[in-house]
């Protein structure tokens, strides 16, 4: 799925005296199946780009087109549908629900789809196997290690088999070994033809073979 950001500006107006320009008239094109790393310091605008692609927020001006869909023009209801059908989002802090089990967390995005139990089961088993967490299926996520929690978060992002994976600082809370393990997962996802955008300042990503492009961003401007 091709992603296009056209003349995107995003301004956060905290109050009249505190206006932050997170993105300043940026243009970016991400081709289908590409793995792009957004590199930049904290506050540079990386996460804002991800949230705009995922239709979690709207730009101040400009347009985001995913395939043929003008996602920046979608109303809230249609934006939710778009996210559900096309986007898998891996958050820095995983955003899992601690009181739920691994299985329950993973199938959560499928609830609004009213799928048959058998179909849900099939999707669940696919991602449990893919990310090697079958044996943790019934454990509460609060009892898992950081690396395991991240695998659950990735499994949840993939359970609906989205075409786009967005990862925001995915290795920020992981040691080097677990970070390398995450990169292995990215390889598998890329091999499946998914379009992947990773926002990170972790140098581990910048010279990887699987990374097609590293896009540097500084104070809301692409370098």
């Amino acid at each position, binding site marked *: 799925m091709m992603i296009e950001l056209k003349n995107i500006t995003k301004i956060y107006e905290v109050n009249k005296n505190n206006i932050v320009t997170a993105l300043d008239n940026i243009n970016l094109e991400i081709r289908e199946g590409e793995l792009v790393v957004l590199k930049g310091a904290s506050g540079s605008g990386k996460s804002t780009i991800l949230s705009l692609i995922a239709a979690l927020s*709207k730009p*101040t*001006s400009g*347009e985001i087109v995913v395939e043929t869909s003008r996602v*920046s*023009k*979608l*109303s*809230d209801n249609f934006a939710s549908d778009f996210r559900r059908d096309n986007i898998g989002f891996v958050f820095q802090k995983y955003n899992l629900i601690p009181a739920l089990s691994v299985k329950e967390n993973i199938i959560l995005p499928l609830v609004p789809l009213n799928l048959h139990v058998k179909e849900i089961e099939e999707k669940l088993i696919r991602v449990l196997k893919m990310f090697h967490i079958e044996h943790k299926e019934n454990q509460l996520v609060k009892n898992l290690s950081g690396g395991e929690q991240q695998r659950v978060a990735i499994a949840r992002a993939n359970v609906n088999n989205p075409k786009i994976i967005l990862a925001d600082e995915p290795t920020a809370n992981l040691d080097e070994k677990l970070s390398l393990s995450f990169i292995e997962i990215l390889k598998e996802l890329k091999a499946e033809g998914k379009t992947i955008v990773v926002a990170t300042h972790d140098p581990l990503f910048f010279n990887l073979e699987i990374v097609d492009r590293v896009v540097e961003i500084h104070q809301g401007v692409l370098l």
Partner: protein
Amino acid sequence: MILTPEVLAILILNAIFALFGMVAFVLSVKIYLNWDINSTSTAQYRLEKQSSLAATIIKYIFSIKVPLFIFFIFTLDKISNVLTGAMCAAGVVDATEQGTYLIVLKIINLYLFALWLKLNAEDVKDRNQPHTKLKFGFFALIFFLFIVEVILEWVMFSAIEIDKMVSCCGSIYSSSANSGISSIFSLGTAALLALFYGNYLLIVLFYFLKKRYLFAVTNMLFVVIAIIALILFFGTYIYELPSHHCPFCFLQRDYYYIGYLIYGMLFVGTFYGLVVGFFKESILSYKISLLFNSLYVILLSLYVVVYYLKNGVLL
């Protein structure tokens, strides 16, 4: 001024609605004048946020205003207990100069508000929001009627004097009444029934022919004809009294509140009939309209048939 808990509730709600409606009105005018769904400018994105806010405000106001009509009628009926001479809501409506105008305006607004809700529902169903400009332009227009209704309601409740004698429905809805109502009594029963059933048959015909504009027009006519037929003819069979023509008494407990069902069916049937004229793909609206109009006709006709079977004569 009469201030029962029901009247207070209506007036407070009206004040809240008018306040929020004003905000929505200002936003609606801005959106109507500047909306361009294809634009990716800052101004357009701001309008999109504002349209979401304005639509939510209007939706909530109208979603409450539509059923509030029933509460308004119920309130009038309740007030009639404290007005000397009034036997039902008709006496309260007739107690002030504004009463009749308010009822007519409320009926018109009922359809307009429901139509806006339908327009909004159609708009948000489509990702391109094709009716946004129209729905806010439409609101900007009906907002004035809404405000007139709020003012008239206030004026009417203010003008009611408890110690003043008012007319009862028996004298208001009679051929000898000194009002415009008496003029409808000049219609002959045969002509009236021909109009009533003829209009209904046309609705059925246009349903099968799927002529949406004609279907909508016949439904619009049916609102008026059905109410006149109810007052002049069918009402007498509900009351089983040849001289009683009140369109309000059967809203009371003595008649098992049947009036709410009768008017409800007429409103739903004719409203969806109008919807057919406004929105192209509305097979469901066609069906709902025909179903409720048919139920209305069948129910009223049954009163006549049952009376005849019980008594062997017609009134």
